[in-house]
């Protein structure tokens, strides 16, 4: 295994564990919204069940977006990023490690928690497995694509607006295929198509994104 990958992976996981409180933020957000929706819309399970897949997916996307800020910001502020960039190690694998850790602490718990929230929205039984599967892949793609945006906006102090603007268009296909796959499963159709597309999106971004992000990070420290 690549040394850069393992060392940065373990380091970032350790840092994430030290900030357990922050990790809960996107999940709490996800949870609160899902609890509020039946109150605001309708508690009728047939109506909720119809829109459950879409709502779960939109909220997962927003929750993931919320967590992007932290991806590189601390390392950028304290000078660690500069140290990492000038290491005699390929930046590609170190960036990949950072993104994977980000997914492990945001996307993964979110995906595993989704069935419980699905239950609150009376999602039909057929949808659960596909919901988890599509979210597992989908949140990984979101973390990857988000990393590009996070790296590009690093040197800008206030990026609350710019970051979503950059990543939203990239997020859209993920949302469309993700929510669609769950809906198809609920309606009893085959879900192989959308899931296969998400799988290919995931593998493509897994290969390309670390390159692009590494380039953006190199640029960011030139400011």
């Amino acid at each position, binding site marked *: 295994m690549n040394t850069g990958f393992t060392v940065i992976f373990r*380091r970032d996981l350790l840092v994430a564990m030290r900030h357990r409180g922050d990790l809960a933020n996107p999940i709490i957000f996800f949870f609160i919204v899902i609890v509020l929706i039946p109150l605001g819309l309708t508690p009728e399970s047939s109506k909720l069940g119809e829109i459950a897949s879409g709502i779960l997916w939109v909220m997962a996307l927003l929750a993931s977006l919320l967590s992007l800020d932290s991806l590189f910001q601390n390392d950028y502020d304290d*000078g660690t990023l500069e140290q990492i960039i000038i290491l*005699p190690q390929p930046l590609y694998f170190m960036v990949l490690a950072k993104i994977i850790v980000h997914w492990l602490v945001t996307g993964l718990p979110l995906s595993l928690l989704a069935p419980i929230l699905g239950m609150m929205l009376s999602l039909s039984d057929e949808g659960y497995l596909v919901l988890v599967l599509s979210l597992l892949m989908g949140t990984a793609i979101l973390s990857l694509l988000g990393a590009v945006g996070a790296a590009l906006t690093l040197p800008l102090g206030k990026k609350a607006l710019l970051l979503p603007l950059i990543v939203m268009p990239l997020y859209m296909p993920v949302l469309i295929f993700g929510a669609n796959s769950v809906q198809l499963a609920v309606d009893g159709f085959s879900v192989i198509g959308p899931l296969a597309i998400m799988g290919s999106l995931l593998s493509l971004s897994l290969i390309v994104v670390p390159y692009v992000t590494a380039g953006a990070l190199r640029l960011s*420290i030139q400011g």
Partner: protein
Amino acid sequence: MPDTNIFALRNIEFHRNGNLLFSDISTSLESGDILQIEGPNGSGKTTLLRLITMALSPCLGEITWQGENVTHIREKYLKDVLFLGHQPGLNESLSVEENLIWWRRLNKSNSLTDSDALKRTGLIGYKSISCSHLSAGQLRRAALARLHVAEAKLWILDEPFSALDKEGSSELKILLLEHLSRGGIVVLSAHHDLEIKNMKRISLVSSR
């Protein structure tokens, strides 16, 4: 002389936002040489140091290491480079020791244990303390602990004496001299005179 590490800057020129920051910077260093970069605030000292670490690339000119342009031997060159920037590069939520450990695993390092390195920087009592609880001077010392474990030949230090107390400064100076006597090369920026013999200097002038 294959054993001498020759480091050279040739006619380095750098522009920032269309303004010339410095031009025609040339120098060459051999084993045991130390170079001090001086100049007023904003004259580009840090920029020049970052050019040397390859974090930035010069607009004109080249940097050579053992006779080869560093852009051609990036990984080999960076193995020989240690850079300590203005910011310490220490994560606040990790302890002093944890911060040292990940760094040394990714760089060529010597056999000195982490505890010994921290002992020499006077931080052994703070080994498991998280970096957010350290003072500026202690953070600087924690960053300097890397100098003890590094195998790198070329040290690039950006204001290494800032925030250090008297004792810390003299310890650092001894460390630098030891490195030079082992055949290492030091490039640093500092505002005061270090009183080291045969020191080379580059003086940058304010561009505006």
